[in-house]
């Protein structure tokens, strides 16, 4: 355990640098970062940068236009240098956003941590208080406060911090609730670490990224509210904060309109860059952030580049081996799939893989997670994520390339190729009954009356072992079990009588007993209907049980392909041997338990 935590902390420093490096690579984030750093710098060194104090008055400079001698941005109505005041004002602004951020983080994060970690009564009360704060008309409260304390920026900002603390509370609480149940927290408990240390080491670690991201938005809000309060005449007129400058320039809006421009500009730009910074941070820090869809033009260029690379490469010059083509139903040739990176490049995840499925054959596609096997499966159906890019190769159904003919691919989906997904519950639309979504899917593939579709589906449901099929048709997904949901999904896949089924880890999410039943159903259906099947799995047991042929995938390449018996008896590749060995030891462990 301790070694794990140590790794974490050493990682931490590296991660921080990596984050910075990534941020700087993103041009918008870099500009935002420079701007923000600039504001901090100016605030810190205001006395050196300004030519005079914030209230240095020269009546001769009153309402001077910008770019006048000695007054770069001109003078305000009181004869003060606008640029100097902006420089001094950055101090108020920095102070304001510091107070808002510190107060809201302190209040929101602590309560969120406690509520999420201990739950119980504290959480109930905290949730209620959050509701209260979120329903309060914040501006009115700030004004009432003003009547009490007068213009007092720190107090106003602290109160505003409390008013927006619920954002942090909600964020942190939900993360803590989920982290709390994670293995490593349990392990830490077992080892006997105190709650404080667990929170310090694990939980805080988990919430840091969202807090940092949220804080850049909080700062933006802080600047906005300072300007707003000043606009309402509730600011401190003796200060030179940007909000006050804006408000004071409004009083001479007709006399010196350009003076409004400067504070408006710095306020808007600072807020803008803080928001952009927050967005960029969330892209970089949250690994879950999906990679961006590439603009069409860029996409085309990337594909062209990748294809140029292939033709140049000697390895791929030799034609891929073709099996006797007459009974081949589906054939994947030299498939290459990539995803755009945030730096504009492309990461290739499938590097030119070949796969042939004969009629009636159950073909296992095995490999570790991340080996690219699901990408292969999705490619055949044309349901790769939007941002994925097919860099080359073909998917031939009856000899026609589906990748170059999107119409044919659309027509093949559902009618020729069926799909059985991995996670049964998340693959059913929670808002529709089982019946409605099955009927819709079937009718989309094979035009027929609703009644006919319904009857057919009820029959199929019974075939896969659902007894009161009529009732199940009227249920919502959350009302059925995972095993039943998987049967429903299998029905959805075969209802339109496809020739081939792509099953992506169809049993992984299920209990062991139900796994066996589902495998049995798949085998039965395949035999009855002469269905071919691509079975994507990491479970060699399943492969041995069900498949005729096996392809082993590693790092985006098919490394070995053989009949199932041959593979298990004499694996050629070292990788396959390892895979077999490790799966056996897992099985042994399961037996021992």
């Amino acid at each position, binding site marked *: 355990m301790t070694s794990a935590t140590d790794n974490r902390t050493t990682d931490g420093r590296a991660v921080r640098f990596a984050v910075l490096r990534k941020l700087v690579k993103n041009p918008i984030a870099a500009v935002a970062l420079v701007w923000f750093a600039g504001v901090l710098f100016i605030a810190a060194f205001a006395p050196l940068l300004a030519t005079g104090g914030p209230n240095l008055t020269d009546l001769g400079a009153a309402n001077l236009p910008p770019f006048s001698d000695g007054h770069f941005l001109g003078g305000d109505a009181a004869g003060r240098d606008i640029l100097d005041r902006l420089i001094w004002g950055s101090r108020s602004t920095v102070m304001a956003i510091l107070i808002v951020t510190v107060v809201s983080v302190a209040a929101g994060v602590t309560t969120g941590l406690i509520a999420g970690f201990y739950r119980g009564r504290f959480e109930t009360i905290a949730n*209620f*208080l959050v*509701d*209260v704060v979120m*329903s*309060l*008309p914040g*501006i*009115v*409260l700030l*004004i*009432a406060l*003003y*009547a*009490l304390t007068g213009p007092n920026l720190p107090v106003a900002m602290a109160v505003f911090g409390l008013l927006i603390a619920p954002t942090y509370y909600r964020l942190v609480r939900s993360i803590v609730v989920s982290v709390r149940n994670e293995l490593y927290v349990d392990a830490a408990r077992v080892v006997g670490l105190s709650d404080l240390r667990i929170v310090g080491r694990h939980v805080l670690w988990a919430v840091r990224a969202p807090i940092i991201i949220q804080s850049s938005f909080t700062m*933006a809000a802080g600047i906005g509210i300072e300007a*707003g309060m000043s*606009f*309402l005449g*509730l600011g401190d007129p003796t200060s030179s904060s940007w909000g006050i400058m804006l408000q004071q320039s*409004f009083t001479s*809006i007709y006399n010196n309109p350009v003076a409004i421009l400067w504070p*408006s500009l710095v306020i*808007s*730009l600072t*807020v*803008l860059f803080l*928001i952009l910074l927050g967005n960029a941070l969330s892209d970089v820090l949250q690994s879950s952030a*999906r990679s961006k*869809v590439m*603009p069409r033009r860029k996409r085309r260029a990337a594909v062209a580049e990748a294809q140029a690379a292939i033709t140049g490469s000697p390895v791929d010059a030799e034609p891929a081996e073709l099996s006797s083509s007459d009974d081949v139903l589906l054939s994947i040739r030299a498939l290459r799939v990539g995803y755009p990176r945030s730096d504009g490049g492309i990461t290739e995840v499938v590097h030119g893989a070949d796969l042939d499925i004969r009629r009636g054959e159950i073909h296992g596609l095995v490999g570790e997670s991340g080996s690219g096997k699901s990408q292969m499966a999705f490619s055949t*159906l*044309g*349901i790769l*994520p*939007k941002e994925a890019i097919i860099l080359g190769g073909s998917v031939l159904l009856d000899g026609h390339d589906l990748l170059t003919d999107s119409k044919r691919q*659309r027509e093949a*989906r*559902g009618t020729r190729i*069926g*799909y059985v*997904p991995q996670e049964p519950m*998340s*693959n059913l*639309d*929670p*808002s*529709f009954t089982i019946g409605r979504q099955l009927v*819709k*899917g*079937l009718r*989309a*593939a094979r035009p027929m009356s609703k009644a006919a579709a319904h009857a057919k589906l009820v029959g199929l449901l019974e075939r896969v072992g659902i007894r009161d099929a009529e009732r199940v048709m009227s249920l*919502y997904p*959350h*009302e059925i079990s995972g095993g039943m949901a998987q049967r429903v999904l299998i029905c*959805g*896949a075969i209802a*339109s009588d496809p020739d081939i089924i*792509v099953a992506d880890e169809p049993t992984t999410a299920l209990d062991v007993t139900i796994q066996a039943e589902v495998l049995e159903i798949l085998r039965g259906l395949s035999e009855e209907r002469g269905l071919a099947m691509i079975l994507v799995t990491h479970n060699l047991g399943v492969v041995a049980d069900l498949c005729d042929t096996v392809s082993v995938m590693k790092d985006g390449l098919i490394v070995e392909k053989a009949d199932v018996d041959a593979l298990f008896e004499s694996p050629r590749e070292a990788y396959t041997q390892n895979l077999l060995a490790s799966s056996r030891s897992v099985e042994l462990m399961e037996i021992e338990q």
Partner: protein
Amino acid sequence: MLLNLMKNLLRSLGVLLVTTFAGFALMFGNATGIASSVLGIGATPESVQAKVVELGLDRPLLVQYWDWLTSAVTGDLGRSFYTGQQVSEALSQRVPVTLSVIIPALALTALISVLLGVAAAVRGGGIDRFVQFFSVGGTAIPNFIIAIALVFAFAIHWRIFPATGYVAFGDDPWQWVLSITLPMLALLVGAVAGGAQQFRTAMLDTLGSDYVRTLRARGMKEQPIIFQHVLRNAAAPGLTVVSLTMLSLLGGAVFIEQVFALPGMGRLATDAAKISDVPMVMGTVMVTVVIVLVINFVADLLIQTLNPKARMR
């Protein structure tokens, strides 16, 4: 579901109690200040003391709050300390003004946000970049600056809309439309900027979900998937966005009413809060909180009706 509703209702009442009490407590403790300010300059200490008693400001906080609460329940919100106007009378004039700016703004925000959000999520490309750009820009510029820019452009330069003021719908529907257009637009920019972005995220989350992929794999066409399945499932987060938008519109109205000299609730609250006009502040706080709670309640109700899981219970 009924139980849920009851729970929600109770919770809302609790929130109302706590918020109004918080408002009361915030203004408590300045009795002589308020009294002498009500009386005006030159009032003797005796008359100030008499006024403190007359306004009931000498009693303990809880007693004052209880009194206010029990009268408020019967619909009597008291009179302004300063002008003597009935608070309920003032509210009945001011609330409609604010609502007639906010509600169209909310409706338009919802509509435009959904359109932009859907277009950005589904089409991607140029429109997506526009939405992202607009979201960031629209949130960055304070709404009162937008409002003043709008006045300069559409009221002073091209005299299309009135620069200030409000005309009641009952007096002249067309003038009403003209009088609320610019204030509404000023609010709309920020609200749509936030709304479109959030709705886009909700759409993308739903579009990326497993069941959408499965529906596609079954051969369903894009259009029915988006309009029947994705929109339906993005509706719940969308409604949350709408209720949050309402909250920010109410806050924004305070500034907008200032620029356009609209006789709305925001200005009433600002003016009253500046001088600790307790009954008036409490009236506006209460109405605002009630509006927020009602919106949240309705949004919650809709979300529950949309969500089969909650509907069953």
